[in-house]
């Protein structure tokens, strides 16, 4: 368990760490805590900031940094006691034991009880979904049509959305975010870092996946009325896109003018070619099996299974099809088509050797967004080994997104995205005390602690 490791680490440090500390007394005395603003005053008229004070990184030029951790989780190997991360120009230059190298003495130092890779939310709507959930800040769902793959997340993502800043305070550095799975084909997703003043500054992958949904939320009111109709419409749309792609190819081969452009079919054409994965939300076993059938029918396309409340009843076909799983939030509400979801699903998938990521997902009401750190924590509290819970919100989603060469673990050469905690990250009573993206301190902890 993480907490016992931390306790033992603290004891170890008391005996062994002075050597490292004597090298950098000045820096170590300037602990991160000193830099943190005090708790927001009670008199503050509103928590919702008009202009975000923490939007711009705290002044740490060049992204150069030394991070010291009593316990360092890398998501690339066992935890390191008394660990250090050396960051130059926003990239990780060294990860390992603090006493294994001569630590540089020219760097700003951050120190925390526990340090993890920056957390990666495998599926969110934040940034399109806003804090207030009013029409003015709710751009994660467009209910004007059942199939709109041409809707790009990058045209809706608000880099200054306070909800993104809120998540950043909990160590979340990367979001796979986009349109909510409330339509048969809802739109696209993108991958952002939770920093930047504009979508261009935030974007890692401007067009990541296309969101489809075989859930109840995507049926009725102009959309399909039944599960079978959902699949039929989806297949029909994909086949129409294939026809379009074929027509474009034939015209090109013949030197003829291309057919008229069609954004919808072009987007799905990129799905069919495997360029953009199709992430399908499905909860019932029946609907998960439909995803497997679709994957068999459209061989060139890549599929991702999202939600998957009843995955335990249909693990093998999904595994055999090689479809990555983005599991529903652990604390997702049980009811309707999610009545059979379980707190222990993550633990059971892990025990079965099936890789998966954990997501914050889409919420229509309160809470406005889930915090993927908490969802992984809840899974850890129900039998998922804490190290596996951490990989489910770091390296696993990075792999699922094809970004594992850049983010998701603390390894030399990767982006210096880190989350700093004052204790076991999964204990509800712990706090995130700092968030680093590309070597820059972009949040100085949770607002209430």
């Amino acid at each position, binding site marked *: 368990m993480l907490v016992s490791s931390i306790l033992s680490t603290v004891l170890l440090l008391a005996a062994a760490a002075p050597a490292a500390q004597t090298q950098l007394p000045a820096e170590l005395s300037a602990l991160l805590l000193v830099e943190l603003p005090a708790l927001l005053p009670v008199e503050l008229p509103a928590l*919702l900031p008009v202009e975000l004070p923490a939007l711009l990184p705290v002044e740490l030029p060049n992204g150069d940094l030394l991070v010291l951790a009593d316990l360092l989780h890398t998501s690339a190997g066992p935890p390191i006691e008394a660990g250090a991360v050396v960051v130059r120009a926003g990239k990780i230059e060294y990860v390992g034991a603090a006493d294994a190298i001569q630590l540089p003495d020219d760097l700003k130092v951050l120190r925390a009880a526990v340090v993890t890779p920056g957390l990666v939310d495998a599926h969110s709507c934040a940034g399109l979904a806003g804090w*207030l959930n009013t029409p003015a800040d709710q751009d994660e769902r467009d209910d004007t049509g059942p199939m709109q793959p041409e809707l790009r997340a990058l045209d809706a993502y608000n880099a200054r959305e306070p909800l993104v800043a809120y998540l950043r305070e909990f160590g979340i550095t990367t979001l796979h975010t986009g349109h909510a799975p409330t339509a048969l084909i809802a739109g696209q997703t993108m991958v952002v870092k939770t920093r930047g003043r504009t979508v261009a500054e935030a974007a890692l992958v401007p067009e990541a996946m296309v969101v489809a949904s075989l859930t109840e939320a995507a049926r009725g009111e102009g959309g399909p009325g039944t599960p079978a109709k959902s699949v039929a419409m989806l297949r029909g749309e994909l086949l129409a896109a294939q026809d379009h792609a074929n027509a474009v190819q034939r015209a090109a081969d013949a030197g003829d003018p291309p057919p008229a452009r069609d954004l919808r079919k072009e987007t799905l054409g990129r799905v069919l070619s495997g360029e953009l994965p199709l992430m399908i939300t499905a909860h019932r076993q029946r609907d998960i099996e439909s995803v497997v059938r679709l994957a068999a029918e459209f061989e060139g396309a890549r599929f991702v299974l999202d939600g998957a409340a*009843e995955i335990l*009843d249909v693990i093998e076909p999904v595994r055999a099809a090689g479809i990555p799983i983005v599991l529903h939030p652990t604390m997702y509400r049980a*009811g309707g088509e999610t009545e059979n979801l379980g707190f222990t699903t993550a633990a059971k998938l892990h025990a079965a050797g099936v890789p998966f990521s954990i997501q914050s997902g889409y919420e229509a009401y*309160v*809470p406005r967004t889930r915090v993927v750190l908490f969802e992984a924590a809840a899974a850890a509290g*129900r039998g998922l080994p804490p190290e596996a819970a951490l990989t489910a919100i770091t390296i696993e989603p990075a792999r699922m997104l094809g970004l594992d060469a850049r983010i998701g673990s603390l390894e030399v050469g990767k982006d210096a995205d880190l989350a700093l905690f004052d204790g076991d990250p999964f204990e509800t009573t712990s706090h995130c005390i700092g968030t680093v993206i590309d070597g820059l301190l972009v949040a100085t902890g949770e607002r*209430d602690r």
Partner: protein
Amino acid sequence: MLSAALFVSLAFSFAPGEELAPPGLAPAPAPLQEPTGTIAFVGARLVPISGPEIESGTLVITDGRIAAIGPAGDVSVPEGARTLDASGRTILPGLVCTHSHVGGPWGADASGPIQPEVRSLDSVDVRAASVHRARAGGLTTINAMPGSGHLISGQTVYLKLRDAGSVEDLCYRFEDGSPMGGLKMANGTNSQKAAPFPGTRAKSAALVREQYIAAQEYRDKVRRAADDEDVDPPARDLALEALVEVLEGKRIVHHHTHRHDDIVTVLRLADEFGFRVVLHHVSEGWKVADEIAAAGVPCSVILVDSPGGKEEARDLRFATPKILDAAGVRLSIHTDDYITDSRLFLRSGALAVRGGLSREKALEALTLEGARQLDLADRIGSLEVGKDADLCVLDGDPLSIYTRVLETWVEGRRVFDLSDPEDALYAEGGRGAGDARVFTDCCANVAGAR
């Protein structure tokens, strides 16, 4: 971890069948079920709430009540008691949720904004999966209530989560035998809509004031008739009767309210009509903590993982309990289950601690303070001699995410046992977890005997 917990829990269990005495319909205030004999939990960490934690204690329960509690050396196990080795366990009083929607205790319909005559009692399904999930969370008492889409959405019902299949067997009762509950009210945006509902906050308050004035007049007519046999009593009015119970202090108002100005409006109305009120949710309570404290009104707080979701909740924060407590406000914590899951109720207390509340206050907010807010503190909410033997048995620290609720006891009977696969299904989820609970012969026999 799970297998280890189950193994130890099995060792901690009764032999099958021992605990399944048939529950009976309650003639309050007498004991509600058959006597359970004497049981002694030995070696557990006891968290009485009403006093300091006991590292290794003995808890003796007799016929559904707590008979003794103290350090292991100070409390002797009575002869003939069934002794349960509870070493490694932590025992809390059964948790009390002051605001829950498990079992579908819906009240008012769409016909109007003020319907105090409707009773959650007549709606709640105590066999629903959600009710057993509450037991799996260590809850033993809940305030089951209608939603917040009305100014007055109906009467709440206080439920004791006994292992029985009828609401009649679960509801707490007033001295006169009538089901015990409060009155659900709301202000702010949830109850504003097209006429006959109010369109604004001022209209909301005006409609409520008119109704309470009508209730005052009704009460006075009833009193005049009681005092003077020549005066006829007014025709019975179920809605006004319920409000008179509020005016007389028998029925506590449980008031949904988020924004700071809405909170102050509730205080103003409570002052005008003299009703007893608990402020529920109080997302912006931290902005008017001193005003709430000055009014002497307790709060029932929800902790949600992120603020927002609607404009009124935009400034919701983890520090609300800490700030209210520092101002001297008494506070409980609630699930608002379906908003947060009853099985994660202890986590809500831990979130309050994350926001700065002391551990002791957080645990009290999950138990004794909730009992006070339901007028039940003389019966439940702490491990004290004479109180109901309602227990939440854990395998670790109450505020740790890694801790599981192993067992839940009500009046000396185990109503949830994680080592029982049927109970574990409701605790952990999985196929069938959404199905209503199937009761065993014990409960059918009760129904037949009635």
